[in-house]
């Protein structure tokens, strides 16, 4: 097995042009899936027999919560790769993930509060699931704050990378919090080993939203990654070609 693909992926000019070329291939399917998922979730899916139309919050809450965990996991893996093999591009991926993950963690918390009030009678409870998700938001904000505080990019990459890797323990805690502790929050409906416990007319729009949000993440990541890669290169001649274009 050759490692050329790995070395090429670590090459900044290759990544820059590849990211630019790939972005629309993720952005357009993401947009289509999200629009179709919205139609399916808001119009086609029937009201829930217990929660009525209130359950439709699931189509924005679950994808946001999924993003908060998936983006963090991506960020931690990228940071670990960057720390172990000293690959600048990997650190650039990790740095690009943070603002995306933070914004969707915030959305997951707010949409969850808006769902909690009518169904549980409270916007907020210091419940294991809710509290661990709030800690995730602080991890993202801490990561971004640490990067902003360190002038030198290499030091920022290393310090924030360690924070990202250590913080990943919170991801399984969030996921299993509803099983390990007695939580107000329901157990997973879709992300479970057994068959999903939800009718197809409700499930299909949810899956479209989950996939659409994931593709959206990749598209945004690719745009941010180009900026991060550029800012890490000081003198390389390829920069002249891409910025003057």
């Amino acid at each position, binding site marked *: 097995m050759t490692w050329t693909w790995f070395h090429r992926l670590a090459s900044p000019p290759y990544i820059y042009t590849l990211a630019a070329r790939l972005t629309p291939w993720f952005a357009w399917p993401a947009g289509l899936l999200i629009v179709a998922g919205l139609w399916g979730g808001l119009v086609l899916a029937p009201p829930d027999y217990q929660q009525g139309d209130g359950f439709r919050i699931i189509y924005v809450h679950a994808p946001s919560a999924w993003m908060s965990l998936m983006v963090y996991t991506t960020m931690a893996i990228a940071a670990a790769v960057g720390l172990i093999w000293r690959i600048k591009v990997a650190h650039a991926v990790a740095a690009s993930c943070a*603002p995306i993950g933070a*914004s969707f963690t915030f959305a997951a918390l707010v949409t969850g509060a808006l769902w909690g009030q009518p169904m549980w009678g409270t916007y907020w409870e210091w419940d294991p699931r809710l509290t661990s998700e709030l800690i995730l938001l602080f991890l993202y904000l801490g990561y971004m704050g640490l990067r902003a505080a360190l002038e030198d990019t290499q030091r920022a990459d290393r310090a924030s990378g360690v924070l990202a890797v250590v913080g990943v323990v919170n991801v399984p805690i969030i996921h299993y919090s509803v099983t390990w502790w007695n939580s107000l929050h329901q157990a997973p409906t879709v992300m479970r080993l057994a068959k999903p416990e939800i009718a197809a007319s409700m499930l299909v729009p949810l899956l479209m939203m989950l996939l659409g949000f994931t593709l959206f993440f990749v598209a945004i990541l690719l745009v941010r990654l180009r900026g991060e890669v550029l800012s890490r290169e000081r003198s390389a001649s390829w920069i*002249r070609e891409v910025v003057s274009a």
Partner: protein
Amino acid sequence: MNSMSRFFEMGGYAAFVWPAYAITFAAIVLNILWARRSLARSREEARRRLAARGEGA
């Protein structure tokens, strides 16, 4: 009551459903704007770095 206004009433949950959709929509739009701005800024900085080194841009 027509079906359109019934849709917007969301079975009495309008005050919770629509803000939830609005905040998520805002997260999507802001991510697009922030990502574009961050790339534009990095390109501008790189251009300035090159100009300062006399390499032109």
